[in-house]
């Protein structure tokens, strides 16, 4: 009976994973399609769409723009998230509850509404659409997440370390940079990476706020609206590959850092 239940569990898991992988496998496989449309029959494999992708300066620029916007917005989200988490956790100023609620509110608002709101506001202020606006839009959507993640990493026990440092004469800067940040480093990295990932593939806010310098999701969307071919599959696969490589790197780096710090 237990064996049956066990196998049902595994079959279920396999079916669900199959479901999850289905469009992704299709996407990746047909990026190597030899004919025009990313549809069966698969007449491959061919690298022509990857060549087309890298020859497409619009795509390459969009890719670069996405990377820049992602890194900058993730950096500021993480930094602001850290400062406010630290401020709330360690100083507990009056109105901490309300502050927490205020910082978390953007999470409950659809990206569509946030992007729309920013677009109207920018227009009122006669601010032209640009990647700067897109970066700002991404900062505001990722700030609550970064804040929540880092806050959850701040435990009361670590405060004693900081108190000890202060007692020994360290000023605030040293306490923050030498003690507080290293202790929550996993949280910082997690917040940064999550923010980057969410910014990197974000469409609707970028759509409202960018002009001719676009991010990758917008470029893909535009290309898909003017003609269907497998080049966008190549783009999607590339996006995937970059994400996998980034996170593997992060994991390896993190392990390496932990290993070194274990040595006496």
């Amino acid at each position, binding site marked *: 009976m237990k064996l049956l239940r066990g196998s049902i569990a595994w079959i279920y898991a396999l079916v669900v994973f199959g479901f999850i992988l289905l469009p992704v496998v299709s996407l990746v496989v047909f990026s190597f399609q030899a004919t025009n449309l990313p549809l069966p029959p698969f007449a491959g494999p061919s690298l022509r769409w990857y060549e087309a992708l890298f020859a497409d300066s619009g795509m390459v620029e969009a890719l670069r723009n996405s990377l*820049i916007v992602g890194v900058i917005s993730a950096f500021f989200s993480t930094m602001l998230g850290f400062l406010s988490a630290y401020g709330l956790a360690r100083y507990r100023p009056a109105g901490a509850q309300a502050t927490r609620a205020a910082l978390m509110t953007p999470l409950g608002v659809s990206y569509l509404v946030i992007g729309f709101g920013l677009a109207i506001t920018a227009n009122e202020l006669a601010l032209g659409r640009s990647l700067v606006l897109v970066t700002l839009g991404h900062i505001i959507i990722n700030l609550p997440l970064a804040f929540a993640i880092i806050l959850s990493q701040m435990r009361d026990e670590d405060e004693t370390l900081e108190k000890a440092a202060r007692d020994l004469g360290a000023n605030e800067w040293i306490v923050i940079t030498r003690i507080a940040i290293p202790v929550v480093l996993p949280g910082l990295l997690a917040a940064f990476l999550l923010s980057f990932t969410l910014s990197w593939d974000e469409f609707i806010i970028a759509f409202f706020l960018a002009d*001719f*310098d676009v991010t990758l999701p917008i470029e893909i969307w535009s290309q898909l*609206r*003017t*003609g269907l071919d497998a080049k966008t599959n190549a783009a999607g696969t590339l996006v995937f590959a970059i994400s996998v490589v980034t996170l593997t790197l992060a994991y390896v*780096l993190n392990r390496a*850092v932990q290993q070194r*710090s274990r*040595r006496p």
Partner: protein
Amino acid sequence: MHKTRITVSMATFSAAALLLASCAGGTDAESSSSSQGASSDAPQELNALVWCDHTDPALLEPFEEANNVTVNVRDYEGTGVALGILEQSQPGDWDVFVIDSVDVPRVAEAGLLAPLDKADFDFNQFFEEVQLPEIHEIDGQLYAVPEKFGYNTVAFNGANVDAEKMRDLSFLWDPELAGKIAIYDYYIPVMEFVGLELGIEPQNITVDDLPAIEARLAELKEQSAQVGDVVSTQTALATGEVDVIVGGGEFSTSVLNAENPDLDWILPNQGGIRWQQAIGVLAGSENQDLATKFVQYIVSDEGQAALATSSCYWGMPANKDAALTDEQKDILRWDEQSGFIANSYPYYIPDADLDAAMLDVWTRVVVG
């Protein structure tokens, strides 16, 4: 121990920051504003608001290379969208405007278009039927030049649907086509097309006709598998998801002909709707000379050939002397054009109230 962790993290962040700085520097250098035309190395920029057939690199590159210009294009799905974009922009944001000919009068009257010098263009080259001075000019002053035309009619897969049956517009509502139709989602031509089936000519449509059109349209929606834009309807026809595109035409099928010669289009006996695009320079543009040059390129023999066979959709060039091959002319049914023009009605553009009412009807039918 802590030191090492901090060093690693600081190093990572600094590296990232340096990388950013170099990339950001690159971005600044490239996105020079259009007012910086003086620099000989950095290309000038021209911003064009266009239908998607103008985004084809094969169309833009010859002009860009010859003039050291970057042409930035944004495409739109309908004139209402384009006007919305213009409204949301600051003066000087846009230089070139591609617009349906029937919309030129109201846009010119609103002062959005710059006057053009007729001497810059050879009107003898244009098909007579598309010159339409009554809509491209105000008081003898030229505001836009015709560039391309075609039909909103029916496109279909000849392997699955009898071309002869498609000559009767009413056949679209036949149960034989249930679930096999895609409706092109531009409400004005499609609703006028439906009106033709009811015997109402586009220029005569009034608010009183809308209930009948709405009912007929709703029946057509029941028959259809999807409502979509140029590309999604093309894709649906190409993949066999549907066999007919209502509101489609050569612009739907010609681009797919190479892969599937069965895809075809026809004007039914009741007639079709004729669309026509014109191109002009925006009054607020800071690059009027360059913009005019671009317009001249678009209506030149080479430009017209590229535009007629552009990657998003094909259409008839306004210029008779467009440098097309015989094969391309066949696909466009070049020789049958005079018959088609005679049997088709130009878009009729409703006034603002009728337009809003039509869009309301459309949205009501489509919302599902």
